[in-house]
């Protein structure tokens, strides 16, 4: 984000004789954001797994190489769009290998025009963090955590859009 701001300031300063339209700047900012990938270890991911707000979060654990994950990804994207006005946010936690971030993950996010927030989890000591995310999780992906401040539920399974919607509705009052 800081880099994005720096680039924006740079663009603003360097373009003072050639003032760009606001739309151009917004577009530029979006491009910068898309090219950046947030990478965390489990400690860094933790804040995304709990909330005190009114929002319901749908956290999907996936990877570009995981066929069933990629198959259900559009449903999560659709959910994020359809339920944005119902205070639901989708977070896609990628378990791609770090060496694939540039060559596979980032191009995938760009090509598929992924709108949901994508976080790359890079923490090899999975035995310590898998049970913290859910005692029920054997470690297989896809896996999904749905939670709000009152309730949380973990799913080691795949979803259709209807199934996903049914689960999320149980979290909305």
């Amino acid at each position, binding site marked *: 984000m800081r880099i994005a701001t720096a680039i924006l300031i740079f663009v603003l300063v360097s373009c003072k004789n050639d003032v760009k339209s606001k739309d151009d700047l917004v577009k530029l900012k979006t491009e910068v954001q898309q090219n950046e990938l947030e990478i965390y270890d489990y400690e860094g991911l933790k804040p995304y797994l709990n909330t005190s707000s009114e929002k319901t979060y749908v956290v999907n654990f996936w990877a570009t190489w*995981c066929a069933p994950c990629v198959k259900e990804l559009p449903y999560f994207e659709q959910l994020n769009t359809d339920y944005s006005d119902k205070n639901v946010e989708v977070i896609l936690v990628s*378990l791609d290998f770090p060496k694939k971030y540039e060559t596979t993950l980032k191009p995938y996010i760009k090509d598929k025009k992924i709108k949901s927030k994508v976080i790359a989890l890079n923490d090899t000591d*999975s035995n310590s963090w898998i049970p913290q995310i859910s005692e029920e999780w054997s470690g297989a992906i896809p896996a999904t955590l749905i939670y709000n401040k009152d309730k949380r539920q973990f799913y*080691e399974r795949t979803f259709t859009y209807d199934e996903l919607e049914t689960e999320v509705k149980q979290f909305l009052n």
Partner: protein
Amino acid sequence: MKTLKTFFACLAVVMLSSFNSTGVGNGYEVGDIATDFNLKNIDGKMVSLANYKDAKGFIVIFTCNTCPYAVAYEDRIVELDKKYASKGYPVIAIMPNNTDVKPGDNMEAMKKRAKEKGFTFPYLMDEGQKIYPQYGATKTPHVYLLQKTKKGNVVKYIGAIDDNYQDADAVKTKYVENAVDALLSGKEIKETETRAIGCTIKV
């Protein structure tokens, strides 16, 4: 009457969801007796645990060609077999995926991969996918360490090979090696169950 109906409906939902939600809870736990099998190896021969008269136990690993996590462990699986087969704990690899869903895991592909990587151990096809559900494997790679006893092959450890799937050189704890070493020296296994990210078994 209506209440009763509702009660049973809820009960059904709860029961269904508990079956559905996860692979954990099904399959073997540490201490259970593991089933033997008779599965086809990449050399065309059938392999059973009972064939290994001199073995003290087995490092059974559900693995495949197509999962990046499994691929990341191939060399380490070969090393496990080299280190422990002679000590009585050979590796037995089983490919659990439905090959209609994952043609990259079919018998021809398994043969090719085993040759490329120099597999020194059997690489078996779970034909009909009957064995992995009995063990309770949910992903590849997924290890079951068995110790041969008079009662049968007892499950002594379930889980990951070590604590770093990305980099073999950065591993801090070698779960499987520690477990086999403990069995070989008659000590108690410290960590009997671990978890790691893996690819779901394709059905």
